[in-house]
C-alpha cells in the first residue's frame, strides 16, 4: 500500500476519511451497515466505530501465495473507493505484494520489521493456496517457499484471515489432481486463530466486517465447521434467494434466454449450486450492493464451498460427475446402467434357471 507516513501517523481516521470526501455521517452509516452484516444490534455501530478509530489498531500484512490476486482485486475494484476500502487502507497494511510502493529488499524489510516489532500482534491476511509437494518449491516469494513464509508470518500473527477459496481450502490449485499439493492455510499453520473467508473472490464487505469484529471485540467472529464466520456463511444462498419462490412453485429456466429466463425464474435446472452453498451473496451482494450472480441471471457456482472446483462442477449440471468414471459421466448414466444391468442379468438368469429346472426333471421329490 502506498504508505504516506503523514496520513498514517498524524491524521485520525475521521480526518483521513474527510480528506477523501467521506463525512462522519457517511462513516457512521457504513458502520451501522457493518453491524447489521455482523448481525449485531445497531447500538454496536458506535462501539465498532470507536474501535476502528482507536489508535492501537494492529498492523496488517497481506500475503499472496498461489493466487490470481482476485481477492486483492475484490478489495480494490469497488466502483468508487468505498468507506470499507478506505478503512482497510487506513488499517496500516504494512505489506501487500501487489499494491505496495516498495519493491524488492525494501518490501521484504517492511515485512520483517512488522514481524519483529509486532510479533503476536499483527493480523495476517492470506490470499492463495500453499503448495506443499516437494517442500513447497512450486511457489517461491523473495527466495522462500510459501510454506516456510506462511509458517513464519501466520504462526506469529495475532489472527489469520484466509481470504478466498484458495487460501481457505486450496481452491482451484487444489483441484484434482492437485499437482502442487496445494493446501489452505488452516491445513499448514496450527496454533493461531484462523478464520476463512472463502469465495472466488471473497466479498470485501465480509473482510471489513471480520476486521471490525476483531477490533471491536478482540476476537474473531464465531465460525462453522469450516472456520467460516457464521454472520456471512451461516445461511445457504438457496434459502435467501430472491428466486426461491419459483423453485418451490416448479418454475425453472430450461434454456438460456428462454421465456422463464427472461422472467427471472429459478436457475436450479441450469446447475445453480445455491442449494449447496453457504454465503451471504443474496443479502450483501457485490460491487457496493449492485447485484450478484443469480440476480444477473446466472446460477451460483458454489465458489465458497470446500472442494469447490471438483464437487461444484460442471457448473451447468446439478450434481458433480461420478469420480473415477472419466469426464462427463453423470450419476444418472451410471445409475441407469446399473439398473439396466440388473434387469438384463435377472432376465437372462431366469431363462437359464428355468431351462435347468426343466432339464433336472420337473418337480422336486
Amino acid at each position, binding site marked *: 500500500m502506498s504508505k504516506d507516513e503523514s496520513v498514517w501517523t498524524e491524521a485520525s481516521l475521521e480526518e483521513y476519511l474527510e480528506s477523501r470526501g467521506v463525512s462522519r455521517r457517511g462513516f457512521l452509516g457504513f458502520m451501522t451497515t457493518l453491524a447489521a452484516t455482523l448481525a449485531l444490534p445497531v447500538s454496536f455501530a458506535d462501539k465498532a466505530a470507536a474501535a476502528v478509530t482507536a489508535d492501537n489498531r494492529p498492523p496488517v500484512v497481506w500475503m499472496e501465495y498461489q493466487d490470481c490476486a482476485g481477492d486483492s482485486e475484490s478489495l480494490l475494484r469497488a466502483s468508487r473507493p468505498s468507506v470499507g476500502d478506505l478503512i482497510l487502507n487506513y488499517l496500516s497494511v504494512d505489506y501487500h505484494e501487489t499494491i505496495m510502493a516498495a519493491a524488492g529488499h525494501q518490501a521484504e524489510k517492511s515485512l520483517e520489521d512488522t514481524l519483529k516489532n509486532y510479533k503476536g500482534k499483527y493480523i495476517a491476511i492470506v490470499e492463495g493456496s500453499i503448495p506443499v509437494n516437494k517442500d513447497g518449491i512450486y511457489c517461491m516469494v523473495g527466495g522462500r517457499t510459501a510454506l516456510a513464509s506462511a509458517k513464519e508470518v501466520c504462526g506469529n500473527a495475532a489472527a489469520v484471515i484466509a481470504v478466498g477459496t484458495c487460501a481457505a481450502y486450496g481452491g482451484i490449485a487444489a483441484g484434482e489432481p492437485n499437482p502442487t499439493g496445494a493446501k489452505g492455510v488452516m491445513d499448514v499453520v496450527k496454533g493461531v486463530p484462523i478464520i476463512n473467508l472463502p469465495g472466488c473472490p471473497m466479498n470485501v464487505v465480509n473482510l471489513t466486517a471480520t476486521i471490525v469484529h476483531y477490533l471491536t471485540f478482540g476476537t474473531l467472529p464465531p465460525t462453522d465447521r469450516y472456520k467460516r464466520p457464521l454472520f456471512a456463511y451461516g445461511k445457504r444462498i438457496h434459502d435467501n434467494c430472491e428466486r426461491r419462490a419459483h423453485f418451490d412453485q*416448479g418454475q425453472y429456466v430450461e434454456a438460456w434466454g428462454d421465456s422463464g429466463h427472461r422472467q427471472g425464474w429459478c436457475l436450479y435446472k441450469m446447475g445453480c449450486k445455491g442449494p449447496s452453498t453457504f454465503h451471504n451473496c443474496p443479502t450483501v451482494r457485490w460491487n457496493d450492493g449492485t447485484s450478484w450472480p443469480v440476480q444477473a441471471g446466472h446460477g451460483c457456482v458454489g465458489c465458497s464451498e*470446500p472442494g469447490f472446483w471438483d464437487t461444484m462442477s460442471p457448473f451447468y449440471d446439478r450434481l458433480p460427475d461420478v469420480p473415477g468414471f472419466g469426464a462427463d459421466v453423470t450419476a444418472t448414466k451410471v445409475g441407469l446402467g*446399473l439398473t439396466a444391468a440388473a434387469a438384463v442379468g435377472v432376465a437372462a438368469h431366469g431363462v437359464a434357471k428355468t431351462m435347468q429346472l426343466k432339464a433336472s426333471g420337473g418337480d422336486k421329490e
Partner: protein
Amino acid sequence: MPKIKAIKVWEFPIRVIHWTNFVSVVGLSVTGAYIHFPFLSTANNPDAFVMGYARAIHLSLGWLLMLGVIGRVIWGLMGNRFARLRNFLPFTYPEGRENLVDVIKYYTFASPRPSGTLGHNALASMAYLSIGLIMIFQVVSGFALYSQADTGGTAYALFGWVFEFMNNGYLRMAHYFSMFIFASFFITHIYAMWMSDVAERNGSGGSMFNGYKYGDPDSKI
C-alpha cells in the same frame, strides 16, 4: 426327505415394516427423482407449489423410512429367530457359511435347487444387510442435507457430522445415486423371491403377506 410344514416365519411387525419400507422407498424414489429433475412444467399456473409438495412428501417419507429402520433394528433384538440381527451376518456362523456355499451353487447353476431355508438364505441376508446399510446412509445423508437449511438447529446438531466425512456436492450425488441401487435391488429382489417360490416351493411370495413359509421346522436358518 424332511417333513414340510407351514411355519410362522415373519411376525406381524416384520411384515408391517417391510411394507412401510416399500412405500417409503418407492415414494422417496419418485419424489426424489422429481427433486433431481423437475420434469413437470408449471409455467402457466401461478398457484403451483409442485416442488414444495414434492419436498414435503420426500421429507415426510424420510421420517417413515427412518422409523422403519429403527423399528427393524429393535425387532432384530426382540423378534423370533428369523428376525434376529444375527441373520444379517450369515458368514459369522457355520450353518450360515454352509448355506452361503449352497446358495451360490444354486445361483451359478452348479445345482438346480438349493437345500432350502426357512428364513432368509445366506446370500439374501447379505443383500438385505447391504440394502439396510444403504437405507441408513439415505436416512443420515437425507437428514444431513435437510439440516443445512438451519445450521443452528437440532437436525444439524444430530447429522451435521456427516459433512466431516463427505463434501456437500458428493453427498448429494451419493444420495441421488442410491436411488438406482434401490431400483436394481427391487428388480433382483422380486426375481429372487419369485425364483425361490418356483424352485423351492417355499411360499416366499405370500410369506410377506401372511407370515407363513413352508419348510423343515428343524432347519437352523
